[in-house]
């Protein structure tokens, strides 16, 4: 095992609470009706290509990508399109979606290989792989949902030296990536191989936090046993520290290189891909299977049976909560994602989409709002900030609408990890104001660049 690595600046260590780490992945049954939102990725929502009354097969494309940063959407079930309408997403806003009444018998589209057999021969070349990934609508499944094919298209003059697989899973509570690594180890490693071929590199590094020892050992063992097949893939244990899984942090931890301010990770010769996306890439390239399902962790301290479920997109989240033992009485807050980066939801029946890594039910004790005090300039937020910013200052400037100053203080470099807010002894909602400032400053910068 390689020595531990970590990013140098800041970071916090919240309680891990990986309650569902030992729960094997269960297949979640399809409900009678699924609601598939068309905007499942960062960027433009897809255009629907089906109409009311159409019969769709599982894996059939129902929405095409619109624009460069956008991803295709496929039907997660076999059934009849009930309507193309709007549905309330987790924020309470209405977004376009396709409603599908699910048939009893499932039928996949032609060309999808459904055996569990491990296919080790990569037949496609680099461009074909990227096209396949694009066609199958694969996005970053860590939560940001950035279309993966855009990431893999290396701009001219740049070279990807490393493929870094982000298996840190630094968010407390979430265990979906960990379970995938343990249960689909070989398939996942094949995914890494495919990615390495896609960007023409022979170095693949899996960055993984040390609190997942079983996964580290299993990966090491599997690579050692199949030395020829998985040549060039290396497992890099990382210190358990939040936000180890931040794109810039994991690059710094593994390669020691720093992504310049305002630039993309490719500047450092690295492409970072999430575990779930890597597995989806294996399924897409080797088995021709579009992205229609993902692993979702349903967890919380008061939840009766925290677990990991393989869920088709469009399944309402409340069914998952019911499967995990129902909504506990002392639930104060339901979060889509992890406790640090996730967002509180307004409704419980929002559909699961490509970026839903977890559904977290926080109990009253943990989610209780704490009394907000005044900033005493202790500087803890500045110490905790993994980007080396001064959150106390940016917070104040954003509050006063001084957006030229926030820009000078590099608000756009904020990765919104929430370490500052976590560490603040006065419980000031620092991240809220910084997010507000970031949105406003970003709009001003974009307007200026357009002139």
């Amino acid at each position, binding site marked *: 095992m390689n020595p531990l690595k970590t990013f140098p600046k800041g970071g916090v260590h919240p309680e891990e609470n990986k309650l569902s780490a030992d729960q094997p992945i269960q297949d979640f049954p399809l409900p009678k009706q699924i609601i598939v939102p068309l905007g499942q990725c960062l960027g433009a929502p897809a255009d629907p290509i089906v109409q009311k009354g159409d019969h769709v097969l599982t894996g059939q494309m129902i929405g095409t990508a619109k624009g460069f940063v956008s991803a295709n959407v496929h039907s997660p079930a076999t059934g009849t399109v009930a309507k193309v309408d*709007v549905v*309330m997403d987790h*924020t*309470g*806003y*209405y977004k376009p979606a396709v409603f599908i009444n699910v048939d009893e018998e499932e039928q996949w589209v032609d060309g999808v290989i459904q055996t569990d057999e491990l296919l080790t021969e990569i037949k496609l070349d680099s461009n074909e792989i990227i096209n396949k990934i694009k066609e199958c609508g694969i996005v970053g499944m860590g939560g940001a949902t950035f279309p993966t094919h855009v990431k893999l298209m290396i701009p001219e003059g740049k070279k990807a030296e490393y493929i870094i697989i982000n298996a840190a899973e630094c968010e407390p509570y979430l265990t979906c990536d960990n379970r995938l690594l343990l249960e689909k180890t070989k398939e996942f490693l094949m995914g890494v191989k495919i990615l390495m071929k896609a960007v023409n590199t022979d170095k693949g590094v899996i960055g993984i936090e040390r609190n997942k020892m079983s996964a580290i050992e299993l990966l090491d063992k599997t690579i050692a046993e199949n030395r020829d097949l998985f040549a060039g893939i290396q497992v890099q244990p990382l210190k358990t520290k939040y936000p180890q899984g931040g794109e810039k942090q994991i690059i710094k931890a593994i390669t020691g290189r720093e992504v310049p301010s305002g630039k993309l990770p490719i500047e450092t010769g690295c492409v970072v891909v999430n575990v779930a996306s890597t597995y989806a890439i294996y399924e897409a390239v080797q088995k021709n299977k579009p992205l229609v399902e993902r692993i979702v962790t349903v967890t919380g301290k008061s939840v009766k049976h925290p677990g990991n479920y393989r869920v088709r997109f469009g399944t309402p989240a409340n069914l998952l909560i019911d499967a995990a033992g129902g909504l506990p009485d002392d639930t104060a807050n339901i979060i889509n994602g992890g406790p640090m980066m996730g*967002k*509180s939801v*307004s*409704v419980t029946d929002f559909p699961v989409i490509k970026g839903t890594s977890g559904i977290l039910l926080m109990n009253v004790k943990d989610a209780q*709002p704490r009394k907000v005090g005044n900033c005493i300039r202790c500087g803890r937020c500045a110490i905790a900030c993994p980007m080396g910013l001064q959150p106390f200052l940016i917070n104040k400037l954003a509050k006063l609408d001084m957006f030229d100053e926030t820009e000078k203080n590099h608000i756009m470099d904020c990765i919104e990890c929430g370490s500052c807010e976590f560490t603040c002894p006065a419980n000031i*909602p620092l991240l*809220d*104001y910084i*997010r*507000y400032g970031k*949105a*406003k400053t970003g709009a001003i910068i974009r307007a200026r660049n357009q002139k």
Partner: protein
Amino acid sequence: MNNILLISLIVLGVLGGILAIILYFVAQKFKVEENPLIDEVEACLAGANCGGCGYAGCRNFAEACVKAASEKQSLAGLNCPSSDMQKVADVLKLTVEAAEPMIAVVRCNGSCENSPAKVHYEGADICAFANTLYAGEGGCSKGCLGLGDCVKKCPFDALHINKETGLPEVDEEKCVGCGACAKACPRGIIEVRPRGKNNRRVYVCCSNTDKGAIVMKSCSVGCIGCQKCFKTCPFEAIEMRGNLAYIDPAKCKSCRKCEEVCPRGTIHAVNFPPRKPKAEQPVGEPVQQPVVEQPVKEKVTIENKENA
């Protein structure tokens, strides 16, 4: 000891004198010639820098007035909503037509009662931020978030959040219609409308353009786009913007027929005397209603509907 004091006094005094002379000449040399009229015009203005005129501040607007007066001999297109333009015109020895007085109107009635909270928001008290996070406590994605961005931006202290309804209320006496609140609202709920004849005006108190079924889920007084008012209006003053009725103040004759037919009580008519015999109304209600959202007014609407 005395010597040091004396020497310092003399040296500093002489130095000060020399520098003062230099500064005087420099000031003479680089003097900026400004039209004294600008100062005079600025003195007539409210000095709130509200931005209602479209300029960066009162000084900026005063400069624009003086420039327009010298170049075009007219103040057309220039209007300060918060001060008397007649005074400005007098200073510049011009005539000016009195602009129609305007007022800010909050087009949302999703109070705690009409649009009950389904979730509870804890976080930064900025509407612009909450707007990016979620639809709102009541679930209406176009409704008032009640965190008071408009209140913070009002330079005339004319807007306040009513704690009972959770909605901002416009103080009719203080509001000048500068539009600072309308710019601040991330959902475009506040509209600057003409005050209307005798301060009486009719408007649609909702901003939700969604389909009726969606509006009904979140609010009991939201516009559902039934078009009854649109069909009733004898002056074609109502247009449908998506699923939302909009009353054009230029065409509206304040007949209040739309208010009668609205099945949801969304159309508000303010400052009208109570309707005569139709409904049992508390007698002696003052004609001038200082507050925009009056629960009594709503009762009028509902009872009228029943009688109609």
